[in-house]
């Protein structure tokens, strides 16, 4: 069966990331004497072209049939090194990685201890590698089309890109209209363009696109399948030329899913010091949008003499569990403050801030314009609001004046931040989407995979991944569309090769694996009375293998002997 192991071991320095804490030379020398090891080397960056070339050349010259790289997490570079092994003629599945960076050099300071641990991890990897069997890459066809959950700007833009590339896109919107939060806005920064001038057009493009189907008052009820072939069950009403259809259940077959479920506006009742809900003079930026749209800034029938904006309401706040910046409030405040100045030139406008974060294109210029329009910026985080006669008093320290002020105001606008929606829990569970510490959905990698998720074929668009302004939301939505379009345009997706397999000699046909499998992969062969696995359905979780009383069913690449070999060397 398996050939006699000829293993190449490669220890990566990762610059100084590993080498500063782990004695890579010692680990290399140590690895040379392990059973089956033909060669052991160390190199600055194994993932670089020359690093990969080392593997390829050794594999060819020395006839390696197994490769072990000790470097970063396999979640990072397993595909890289599998490809390199393959180019060197080694079956990519006879490659094993020892994670001596994330799980060693980065978490331990002591060089001796870290080196000892790195050695142990290398032994285990070598032990497993020696027992790995060759496997074939597999691909399956892709159902053309994508489901987009959420019909805000992010969802609509992503759906349009999918549709423009020739694939059906299905928008599943919870409410009774498209447009999301942006539909509640009046004008957008920094151009002060009325939303009414562009959002209806976008909605119209979506609704009239032959490739797009919109479901309103709709929810995703069930998701089955995997990347390339999802079956999404939607309950809701389909929009057609003649209007909204009857509510019903729709089954959609698609290759990818884009999550664009948006955000929740922070509820300022949770900051009792501002008296929101208590004083009619205290409103949120969202309420201010409506007032600006209606041109009604009066309080108690009177034009306000002084309008105060308070930033960071619900953001940058550890006590609330919202440590992050909401990214848009500085610009929204600058916008609304300017609009107040334009509408009521005699009204004083003051913005209280901690840091002014006007970072986007034309953002700083916009902030400049706000100040030039007469908006007064004062540095200080408002501490409380109380009543004085008809007005309210804003109590705040001006940190430059180094003085606590009691500023009287007629209208106070709270720049409320964004929060993760908790009503998306169901979708998170259906799609197995993890959340990051701030509650927003977690991307696969914060830098280089900002729209991918831990689930293949499921992508993130817009503020469900974190607060964003409209241009950034659109860019990210289109990025999600690009990720979704890759499998759709290719027509195939790779699927795992590490699936369960039955040894018919050992199988007693008890059917326990059939019962335990959540994916319906194993089935009893009526002719032979033994279990057989449909490899397309199998996801390699291994539930069957543990359950099987005769150990007849095992998962390739995670066979008991491969695991126990690691246990063996690790406890020595």
């Amino acid at each position, binding site marked *: 069966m398996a050939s006699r192991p000829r293993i190449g071991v490669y220890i990566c320095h990762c610059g100084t990331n590993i080498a500063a804490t782990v004695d890579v030379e010692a680990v290399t020398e140590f690895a040379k004497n392990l059973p089956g090891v033909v060669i052991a080397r160390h190199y600055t960056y194994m993932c670089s072209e020359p690093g990969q070339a080392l593997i390829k050349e050794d594999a060819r010259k020395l006839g390696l049939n197994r490769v072990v790289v000790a470097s970063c997490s396999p979640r990072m570079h397993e595909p890289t090194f599998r490809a390199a092994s393959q180019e060197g003629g080694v079956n990519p599945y006879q490659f094993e990685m020892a994670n001596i960076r994330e799980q060693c050099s980065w978490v331990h300071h002591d060089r001796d201890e870290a080196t000892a641990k790195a050695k142990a991890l290398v032994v285990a990897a070598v032990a497993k590698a020696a027992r790995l069997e060759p496997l074939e890459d597999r691909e399956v066809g892709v159902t053309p089309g994508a489901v987009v959950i959420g019909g805000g700007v992010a969802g609509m833009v992503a759906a349009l890109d999918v549709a423009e590339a020739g694939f059906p896109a299905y928008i599943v919107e919870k409410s009774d209209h498209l447009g999301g939060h942006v539909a509640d806005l009046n004008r957008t920064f920094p151009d002060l363009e009325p939303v009414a001038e562009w959002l209806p057009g976008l909605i119209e493009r979506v609704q009239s696109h032959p490739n797009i189907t919109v479901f309103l008052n709709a929810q995703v009820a069930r998701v089955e399948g995997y990347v390339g072939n999802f079956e999404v069950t939607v309950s809701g009403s389909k929009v057609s030329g003649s209007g909204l259809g009857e509510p019903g259940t729709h089954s959609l077959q698609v290759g990818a899913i884009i999550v664009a479920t948006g955000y929740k506006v922070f509820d300022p009742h949770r900051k*009792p*010091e501002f*008296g929101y809900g208590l004083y009619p003079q205290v409103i949120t930026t969202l309420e201010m949008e409506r007032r600006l749209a209606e041109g009604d800034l009066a309080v108690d029938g009177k034009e306000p003499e002084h309008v105060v904006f308070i930033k*960071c309401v619900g953001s*940058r*706040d*550890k*006590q*609330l569990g919202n440590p992050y910046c909401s990214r848009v409030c500085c610009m929204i405040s600058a916008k609304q403050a300017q609009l107040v100045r334009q509408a009521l030139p005699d009204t004083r406008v003051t913005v209280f801030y*901690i*840091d002014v974060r006007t970072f986007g294109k034309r953002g700083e210029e916009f902030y400049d314009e706000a100040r030039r329009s007469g908006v007064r910026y004062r*540095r*200080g*985080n*408002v*501490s*409380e*609001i*109380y*009543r004085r006669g008809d007005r309210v008093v804003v*109590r*705040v*320290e*001006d*940190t430059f004046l*180094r003085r*606590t002020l*009691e500023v009287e105001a007629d209208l106070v606008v709270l720049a409320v931040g964004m929060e993760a929606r908790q009503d998306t829990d169901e979708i998170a569970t259906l799609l197995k989407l993890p959340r990051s510490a701030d509650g927003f959905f977690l991307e696969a990698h914060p830098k280089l995979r900002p729209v991918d998720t831990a689930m293949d074929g499921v992508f993130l668009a817009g503020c469900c991944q974190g607060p964003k302004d409209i241009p950034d939301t659109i860019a990210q939505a289109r990025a999600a569309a690009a990720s979704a379009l890759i499998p759709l345009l290719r027509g195939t997706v790779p699927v795992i090769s590490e699936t369960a397999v039955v040894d018919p000699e050992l199988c007693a046909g008890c059917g326990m694996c059939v019962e335990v499998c959540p994916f319906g992969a194993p089935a009893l062969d009526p002719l032979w009375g033994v279990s057989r696995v449909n490899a397309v359905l199998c996801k390699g979780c291994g539930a069957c293998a543990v359950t099987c009383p005769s150990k007849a069913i095992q998962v390739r690449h995670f066979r008991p002997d491969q695991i126990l070999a690691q246990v063996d060397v690790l406890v020595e």
Partner: protein
Amino acid sequence: MQADIQELAKELGLGLDLLGCIQCGKCTGGCPVSITTALNVRFLVYEALVDALPDLGGMEELWDCTCCFTCVERCPKDVRPAELIISLRSQLVESGKIPGTIGDALMSIFRQGNPLGFAREDRAAWAEGLGIKSAREGCEVLWFVGCVPSYDMRSQAVAKAAAKVFQAAGVDFGILGTEETCCGNEVRRVGEMGLFEMLVEEGKPLLESVGAPTMVTTSPHCFNTFKHEYNLEGMEVLHYTQFLARLIEEGKLTFSGKVERVVTYHDPCFLGKQNHVFDEPRAVLQAIPGVKFVEMDRIRERSLCCEGGGGRMWFEGTNTEERLAFQRVHEAAETGAEVLAVACPFCMSMLEDAVKVQGLEDRLKVMDILELVAEAM
């Protein structure tokens, strides 16, 4: 160095997180004394962060802090700014640079177990003839009377009202009598950590030895330190407002009389802002037959401090302007209330003085919730 101050605070058992500060000013903006005195805690934090603290000896305003902890409650970064003041005060205490009146109070606590300069033997004199048993005999509820209610004449009336109410409700309670010693809440807040530790070392075993499952305090200050800083085992600590609310809910405390008056309520910082006990005092007041309950504007999380905490009972403060208590009693009067209800001996003292100074005696009476409850029995 910033690191030294942070380290000192840590040693003192304070949760100060100096390095987390982003200088937003929320602390100083909410500080009740920041308008009337030179104290600016945000700026102190900054000076500590950039190693620019001046000589502390000249900073009399450090003693202005009432330890109301509004800054702690509101700080978005959980820096706990007031604890910097406590740390700095502890340095002053170490070097003996403290206001004389505070020194006297501390000495009295050390010698007599109370800050008011009275003799320990007289601590339970107020209770004579009231049929209150010693907790030593065993009891369900240990009532911690507190220093001010034990000695101060005005507050003794509150203590007596409490005894009456507890008895009427059939509570099995006892007191520690002359064994009762200052809880040390203010001691810790003026930075006398050594004395506070001593009080805890002696007090904790004493309190636990009673074996009562519940302790009820008259003062929110005692309540605060027992609850958070004594780590008492097998004993639930309640402020009396929580206890009364519970008795009312359980139907154990009933009223036969009426109090036909308009009443408003002032939240004590150590009960409200610091321990989030807002609803129980209001529930008790609203349960009293006849009471017409009205609210002031600045209540609950936004309540105004009376300036009695953090050692301010023993230190006038550098404030040259109007006292906050003056402002407060006017606010109370404006609601049309006849009674300004309090739930703290310090608030009682500060606000009653203010009523007198402001000439509001005809319109407004300061009463403890206990007195109103007793009146309705």
